[in-house]
């Protein structure tokens, strides 16, 4: 089992979720985050002050998948989240030791 972490553009969420659902992923968890990377931010002006805002709003998607679904899920995310411009984001895949569904106590792949 793997945990997929994907940093994407906020307005791509719906497309990514649909793409993942299609390949059979049953659940995801989304967090609002701020990203710093190659994409450059903007300048904000307030009265006497100017601030360069390097951090841009992004969404982080976390999704635990059985090994069998990994490749399909990765492809789905890439296709749905890509615009081709700097700042599209990253996907990071982590190994998972085990998972539990709290409601039932089911373990591993059954828990997803």
């Amino acid at each position, binding site marked *: 089992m793997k945990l997929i972490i994907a940093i994407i553009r906020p*307005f791509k969420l*719906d497309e990514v979720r649909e793409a993942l659902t299609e390949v059979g992923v049953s659940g995801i968890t989304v967090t609002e985050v701020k990203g710093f990377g190659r994409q450059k931010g*903007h*300048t*904000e*002006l*307030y009265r006497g002050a100017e601030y360069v805002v390097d951090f841009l709003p992004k969404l982080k998607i976390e999704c635990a998948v059985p090994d069998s679904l990994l490749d399909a899920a990765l492809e789905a995310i890439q296709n749905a989240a890509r615009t081709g411009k700097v700042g599209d984001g990253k996907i990071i895949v982590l190994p998972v030791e085990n998972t539990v569904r709290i409601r039932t106590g089911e373990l591993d792949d059954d828990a997803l």
Partner: protein
Amino acid sequence: MKYETMLDPRSRERALRTLAWSALPIAALLALGPAHAQDAAAAAEAAKPVVDKGDVAWMLTSTLLVLLMTVPGLALFYGGLVRSKNVLSVLMQVLAVFSLIVLLWVTYGYSLAFNGGNAFIGNLDKLFLKGVNKESLAATFTAGVSLPEYVFIAFQSTFAGITGALIVGAFAERIKFSAVLLFSAIWFTFAYLPIAHMVWYGPDGYLFAKGAIDFAGGTVVHINAGVAGLVGAYFVGKRVGYGREAIKPHNVTFTMIGASLLWVGWFGFNAGSNLEATAGAALAFLNTLLATAAAALAWSLVEKVIKGKPSMLGGASGVVAGLVAITPACGTVGPFGAIAIGAIAGAVCVWGVHGLKRLLRADDALDVFGVHGLGGIIGALLTGVFSSPSLGGFGLGAGNDTIAAQLGVQALGVGITVVWSGVVSVIAFALVKLVVGLRVPEEAEREGLDITTHGETAYEN
């Protein structure tokens, strides 16, 4: 009751003539208000118009109430309805349009709307407020009772200002700031001023002369703005993601504060339009209170029945719909007529923002047409109904004996306003598109106008 405004001694004669036409038993009543004007001494100098400090107090208060309606009222109502990345752009548009129009008003607007001219537009004799000073007076509806002209200029400037600001809700979240300003200046000049002149400038104004009733500006302000907004929504086009992504209000509490301040301020708008602190103002006041309460409940009830849940946003929208609809009627209908108008407008405008909106296929972002345009039309027509003494009202317009006759005149007023404002808006938007362009680039729209147009963000933790 007709809105008669004579602004210098020269037009006094016409004023009296107009008053004589009036079928309303209002003169008798109003004579009661400034009782002290009636004592022997005063009678001796009846020719000299009286300025009552109570009127001045009420009209100054009314004027600042209309400002309160605009900023922060309307700004918040609209600001809460957009996404947080665009809230400042909406606030800024409301502030800038209001400010711009107020300046244009004293420069040439007041003269073109309320001074001489013909049935459709005034003249430029009072350009730059020429000849206005602390002694000059503006007439009220009561012969012999005047206001300092500065009061009337200030009061009316806020009407013009809020009308322009109302329109921006229709194309919020994607329009260029420069386009908003340019459009507002053009539209104010070629749509607002003529309609105001036609409806309110007595006895010459085209609709005024026909006995159309628009006590506080249902046609001039709301239908006028509603149509301009709708045209704008077509011209500017739909927001990116409209119909696909969830485009939700970012702060319904702000919208509720805004609606509440609209309600509070609207007493200046409606009861202030009486120009005197009399029982007539009190009637307009009570009607404004009741129609709004009825509309808020009616909208909620319809939502409850149709969708199962009465939303707060619906309640707030009902407040605005009720206020819009009672605006032309508040001086001539009775309290239960006001309740009926409010309830009907509240119920019908639910359709305005659902069914009608789908029919129109325009992304009128904040429902300027669905609420102000439609609510204004309902109000204008029902004014012709509930002003009838047979339905508890205080009298139809001069020369209109039956509800049917009055309805005809009211419909004419609606028709003229819709066509005039529509045509001017089309031309104005076409022009603006040519000169500065209408819309920000898609990427800027995605990022939000606050950062891309104004260089700032509204909220920070």
